[in-house]
């Protein structure tokens, strides 16, 4: 199987370049990460992040044949040759497939992604009905891999002002949580021409999310709640 992989080490390379690799020993059921690890055995200078190998840690987000995804849960058999692998778009490249995720993490921090309870806390759990808990399904499972945000044109255009689908999904996660008591502040903070309203429902985020989440719908839900609150 043939691979074309984006290489760039600012210490030695003037410009990014594409390196070709060949792997002969392809087993059925092999994931792209397995292939990258096999390539790295031959060429230890190839840089990429990885950890859990099963799609829960969110380390190995990359652009695979033009679509963002996690290498560890992308089957080689689903990919067209040569497999072209690039770093996640629109984030500064540190080296090879490794990008600087800090702008993405900053967006996350900007939505104050933590439960805020203002009342005195009981000595036991805060009660929540199963139906209310179900509202968090599809929101809390995000693994912060960055696939969605870096595939979003609105993020490409306004990376410093639009919060991006991942952070907005987190905003929704806390707005929808019946235990959270900062809903008003959260909604007010998003009422701005950029943070949320640059979303034009292009839905790239939905298409690429490796966990099958739907940030566009979450953003829609936030808008609905904002409208309800303002009327």
């Amino acid at each position, binding site marked *: 199987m043939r691979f074309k992989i984006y290489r760039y080490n600012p210490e030695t390379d003037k410009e990014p370049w594409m390196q070709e690799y060949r792997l002969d020993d392809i087993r059925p059921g092999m994931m792209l990460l397995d292939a990258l690890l096999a390539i790295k055995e031959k060429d230890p200078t190839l840089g990429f992040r990885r950890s859990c190998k099963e799609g829960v840690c969110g380390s190995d987000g990359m652009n695979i044949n033009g679509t963002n995804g996690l290498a560890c849960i992308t089957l080689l058999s689903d990919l067209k040759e040569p497999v072209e692998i690039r770093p996640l778009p629109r984030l500064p490249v540190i080296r090879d497939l490794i990008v600087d995720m800090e702008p993405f993490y900053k967006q996350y921090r900007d939505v104050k992604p933590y439960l805020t309870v203002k009342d005195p806390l009981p000595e036991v759990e805060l009660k929540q009905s199963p139906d209310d808990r179900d509202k968090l399904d599809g929101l809390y499972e995000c693994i912060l891999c960055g696939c969605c945000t870096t595939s979003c044109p*609105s993020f490409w*255009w*306004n990376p410093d*002002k639009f919060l991006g689908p991942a952070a907005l999904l987190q905003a929704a996660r806390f707005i929808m949580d019946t235990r959270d008591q900062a809903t008003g502040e959260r909604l007010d903070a*998003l*009422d*701005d*021409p*950029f*943070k*949320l*309203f*640059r979303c*034009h429902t292009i839905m790239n985020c939905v298409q690429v999310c490796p966990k099958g989440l739907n940030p566009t719908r979450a953003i829609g839900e936030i*808008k609905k709640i*904002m*409208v309800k609150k*303002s009327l």
Partner: protein
Amino acid sequence: MSAPGLQGLRPWIVQRISAAFIAVFILYFTICIAQFEVFDFDHWQQWLALPFNNMAMALFIVAVLWHAWIGVRDVILDYVHPVVLRMFLFTLVMSVLVGSGLWGLRALFNLHVA
């Protein structure tokens, strides 16, 4: 940094309400003109002379221009990043839209007076 005076939720709501009004108006207008065998300038004047139609058309002009403003504003926000250029384009678009609006309304009310 957000541009001064620009908001998030309100324009978004206005964009949707104006879109709804535009759609309803176009439907109403199409039905009306379909009832004329010929639709020339005289019929057009007569039709617009009715106070209800006149008001609806005035609202339509405002809705189209407001809707356009929000749409173009969004495009500028997406694509134009230098602040000075952005301000210039906002001013330009705003002037054109307000100008067209005033001109359209003047035509509409002059006709009514006549």
